[in-house]
């Protein structure tokens, strides 16, 4: 049905505009930015110190002073949720960064150099065989629990997932005429890789990165909840829920607000990622 050529949407200058036209993406972006801003500006916004104990005010329900209530040490839930957001987002961003560096490199190399493809692809397959949390747990157990190791472990967990996507796209792009044209021009390989291959991988990496961001935040929360991740006194949404768990039925706000924070951030990330994918994946636009 070549009758109507849909307006070509390619990742380019018009992308953001296209993206913002979608209501769900819009909502996702707004929420995400709000969460990120709140987290970033936590020291200026938050009315209290995140770590200062105030035993007299422990387990206060949400109210005009303590919007999200207080925890068992009398620390302000709102403040801690904001501060925890910084770390949770930091974990997400760092995992994405780590996974991108490792995954994109691996995927590019595997996809572009035929000889290296099979061995790298096997390693990727093998890494994918480990369920994410399980692998992360094992890695954290091996490396010793800390914020850094959680990031590294989750990075190792998600890098192959990204590598696989990058490899698959690279395999396709490698065969495209514009890459061939570059080779015909005698453009050096590394330049082909960066200028022609990598640049066109931005969209899939962006989409995948968004989802990895979301999953990494969930995974970090899971690990912290299990007590095998970030040290429990480091406030992340996961550790907050883990701490609040004992007070379920007594101080439900302790689990409620960080839980909502996770759901909101992850959901907004997924909304954005999904919108991006919808826009960038030509398969889904086939019937237009």
């Amino acid at each position, binding site marked *: 049905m070549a009758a109507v050529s849909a307006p070509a949407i390619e990742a380019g200058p018009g992308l953001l505009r296209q993206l913002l036209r979608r209501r769900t993406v819009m909502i996702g972006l707004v929420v995400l930015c709000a969460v990120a801003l709140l987290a970033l500006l936590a020291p200026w916004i938050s009315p209290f110190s995140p770590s200062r*104990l105030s*035993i007299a005010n*422990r*387990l206060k329900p949400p109210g005009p002073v303590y919007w999200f209530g207080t925890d068992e040490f009398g620390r302000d839930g709102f403040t801690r949720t904001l501060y925890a957001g910084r770390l949770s987002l930091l974990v997400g961003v760092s995992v994405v960064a780590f996974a991108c560096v490792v995954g994109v490199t691996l995927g590019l190399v595997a996809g572009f150099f035929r000889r290296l493809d099979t061995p790298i692809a096997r390693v990727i397959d093998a890494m994918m065989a480990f369920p994410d949390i399980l692998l992360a747990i094992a890695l954290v157990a091996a490396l010793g629990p800390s914020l850094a190791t959680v990031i590294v472990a989750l990075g190792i967990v998600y890098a192959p997932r990204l590598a696989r996507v990058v490899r698959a796209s690279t395999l396709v792009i490698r065969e495209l005429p514009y890459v061939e044209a570059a080779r015909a021009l005698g453009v050096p390989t590394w330049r082909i890789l960066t200028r022609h291959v990598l640049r066109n991988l931005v969209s899939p990496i962006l989409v995948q990165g968004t989802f990895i961001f979301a999953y990494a935040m969930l995974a970090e929360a899971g690990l912290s909840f299990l*007590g095998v991740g970030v*040290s*429990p*006194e480091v406030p992340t949404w996961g550790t907050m829920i883990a701490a609040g768990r*004992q007070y379920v*039925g007594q101080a439900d706000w302790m689990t409620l607000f960080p839980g909502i924070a996770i759901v909101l951030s992850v959901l907004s990330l997924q909304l954005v990622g999904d919108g991006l994918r919808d826009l960038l994946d030509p398969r889904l636009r086939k019937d237009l």
Partner: protein
Amino acid sequence: MMGRVNSVRRALLAGTAAMVGAFVLPTGSVEAQTKGGVVNVATVGEPPTLDPMVSTADLVGIITQHFYETLFTFDKNWKVTPLLAETMPEISADGKVYTIKLRQGVTFHDGSTMTSEDVVASLKRWMDLASRGKQTAGIVAGVEAVDANTVRMTLKEPYAPLLALLAFNNSAAVIMPAKKMENPLKEPVGTGPYKLKERKADQYIQLVRHDGYKSRSGEPDGYGGARKQIVDEIRFVPVPDANTRIEGAISGQYDYVDALPVEAFSRLQGQKTTEPVLLKPFGWPVFVMNTKQGIMSNLDARLAVRTALSEEDMLTAAFGSKDFFALNPAMFPKDYIWHTTAGTEGAYNLADPEKAKALLKKAGSEGKPLRILTSRQYEFHYKMAQVAAEYLKQAGFAVELMVVDWATLTQRRTDPALWDIYITHSPFLPEPALTGLLSESSPGWWSTPLRKKTVDAFNSEPDPAKRPALWAEVQKAIYAEVPGIKIGDFNALSAKSPKLDGVVPAPWPYFWNASIK
């Protein structure tokens, strides 16, 4: 676990029953209950072993006391009373020779009959393997069978705490058949009213009635007296998560739920399925200092820690309402004969960061990492650690919380290179001499001339009337040299189903004599 005696998580409630109010006989006659039924007990976790000698874990004690028995035990007034021994021992005038008569016709789960040979072998094994046994071994000159039903222990010097040690139910001097005491144990064979049927790690430990059990005659009396086998089965289910235990209690899934966070008290009230059981006072949390190595080997640094802390905040964070804890610097609560305020003046609940800073500076340890080893198995440990960490940070300590599971903690604390402070708690013991802090060999390794002088004097004094004064000296030494910091007194919470009868609120809950409606 918990090193020596003080590592006993459970209180052996000292003093009289009246004072403690814990050992109240259930109303209604036990006889009225029909036999049968199953008791489901939610415990804090999976026991690392079922050999009560090699472990000091209270959990091991709670479970194994149903199938292993000791020569002596405690009655409802926390007095030592015979269990497998026929009577209390004959003690020679110099206090060095104990002659113990054994009950006759006691059979093991494998059908064999207990003889003095088994008892001698068991005691020797105890002195070889058990931490309390090893401690005792130093003063024991010999253990021998006098005849088939009599055993004699000879001491090098008089030792007041001996019988209490033999009566303890963890790191316990249990009696096992001479032929079935390999290490590690292959199968637990004891003399207890129940025997092990099946153990599924992390799922359950299933005990069934030992048909050949021969109970002592008379009425039940604390851990002593008659032990009745009313229920068919006792199941210990490990539920490591405290919250799940609370919910399990409320939903009626378990008949008895052990070790609940005290703040869950209100949630348990007014439920049809369960009711709260409060033990008051239960014991005392303690920050044990590593006096052997690292930053805490310096007395000023230890003093700095004590000066920095707010015990009140720590206890509030850990236990919530004052209904569940009491601020008390003395090693024993007021109602105990051991209670004294000696040495505690100006050394408790100071929360003075400035002074602490000065002390730290004096110690020359500013900025050095202070490693606090704690576990989340007992949430109140962890919470106290968090509060403490905040106060210590204000005082200039570079605090590093090392949060591990309890099993790891018990491993790590034996290595002086790995920690500076570790957090534990102890019951109020019937015999203060057993307090772990006082032992040179338990983690913390407090070993000074002052300790030796005061503790030796206390241990070798046979006259009960003179001992409280000597104990005050010991307490003074503790406050002077800070081998550890007693945080306060706290209560313990369990939950039991209204259907469950005959369970006496006890530090180590036991389910012989229990019945289920």
